[in-house]
């Protein structure tokens, strides 16, 4: 792949290589996902230019060891999965696992949010309080108000960290379980504040859209 082509992807005028480099520096320094407006403000460049720079960077890094991904409403530099074993070895860590019960509760919250604990327990048929608390402690799930039902149970939602950990740009990127009609109910970000830097939303062409 020739870098020259990537630097100027069919755009009249192309993208300033220095802007691409600047975007990369910010992403590296931040570590966490950065939304386009945040990058644009830090560099003092128009958001549209930043978006083009991100596309260039995404393409250029595609086959490298650190790739650029859209996650949690922003962009983040992440290691390529194929080096997971080596990185774990280097850091002396082990792949973090979720218990089966944690996976199930997380799945219910992810696809049905906002959802109450009684609803989760009805679906699983067992007490899920401990697992839920564990997920809240790990920052994958958070409370989001209460229902008006008797006892006013708390509602639970997934967090921005959930999107980051599972590599999802937003909740709409969760695959629809079409054939499993029961789970589809309550799918997707139905209201307000889920996707944190709310500006950057799903599909790839979103990168072409302008911020308000």
């Amino acid at each position, binding site marked *: 792949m020739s870098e020259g082509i990537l630097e100027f992807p069919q755009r009249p005028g192309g993208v300033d290589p220095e802007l691409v480099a600047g975007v990369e520096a910010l992403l590296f320094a931040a570590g966490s996902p950065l939304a386009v407006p945040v990058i644009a403000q830090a560099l003092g460049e128009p958001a549209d230019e930043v978006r083009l720079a991100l596309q260039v960077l995404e393409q250029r890094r595609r086959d490298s060891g650190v790739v650029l991904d859209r996650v949690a409403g922003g962009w983040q*530099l*992440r290691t390529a999965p194929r080096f997971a074993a080596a990185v774990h070895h280097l850091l002396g860590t082990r792949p973090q696992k*979720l*218990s*089966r*019960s944690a996976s199930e509760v*997380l*799945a219910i919250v992810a696809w049905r949010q906002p959802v109450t604990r009684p609803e989760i327990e009805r679906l699983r048929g*067992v007490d899920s309080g401990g697992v839920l608390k564990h997920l809240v402690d790990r920052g994958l799930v958070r409370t989001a108000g209460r229902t008006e039902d008797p006892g006013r149970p708390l509602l639970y939602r997934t967090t921005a960290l959930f999107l980051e950990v599972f590599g999802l740009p937003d909740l709409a990127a969760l695959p629809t379980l079409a054939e499993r009609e029961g789970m589809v109910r309550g799918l997707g970000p139905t209201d307000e504040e889920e996707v944190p830097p709310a500006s950057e939303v799903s599909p790839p062409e979103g990168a072409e859209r302008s911020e308000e």
Partner: protein
Amino acid sequence: MEVGRIADAYLEWIERTRALDLSLAADWLLMAATLVHLKSLELLPRPPAILEEEEQDPRDALIQQLQEYERVKAAADVLETFPRVGREIHVRPPREAPTGPAPLAPGDVFALLDLFHEILARGGPPEVTFQADDSGPDFGLCCRRVLALLGGKGGRVDLGTILVSLRTPAERVVTFVGVLEMVRLGWLDIEQERHLAPVSVLQVVEDEALDLHLLTGWVEEGEPGEQMTLPLGGRSA
């Protein structure tokens, strides 16, 4: 009563919970109980009045729940297929410029249990020093000994060293429980430099903040607690 034997059984049980997925076992237990219940409904004759009340076949509810649970499991499987940060993917944690020695990792509970087990195993049989009025090691005294070794806020001592220095297994057990209790009260912290490193105890509050009555209230109900009102100045191991 042999404390050691109780502790052994307890530790063995904890060891087993580590290996077992308890929540999974609970799932199965509930399912088994439900099935037995349904079976009993079929086998035992019931007055017609009750039969009429239960219009819905309880089996339908069970089947529906099982179907919904299947969907949940399928969704969990889908979730498991995503490459995850911490599993397949790593991200760079933003780091601030170092300002001092690296913080120690908080101790983990299994390291504590391992240590406890090891200490108990190390001690020989208890010495035969029983007297008619020997009521065993004094909880407050054991706690104060640890505090004396720590010597004030910021003091740090290796927990294994403390425990090994004690004469009888009973004292070790009581001291260990005392340390846990003081951690619970927020007086002490338990730390490890890294995974599997020795467990150390750290005093996190000033001596003035230590209310020894909190310890007495825990064990010596009914006692006037005279021994426990000793000021910390009287520390001597």
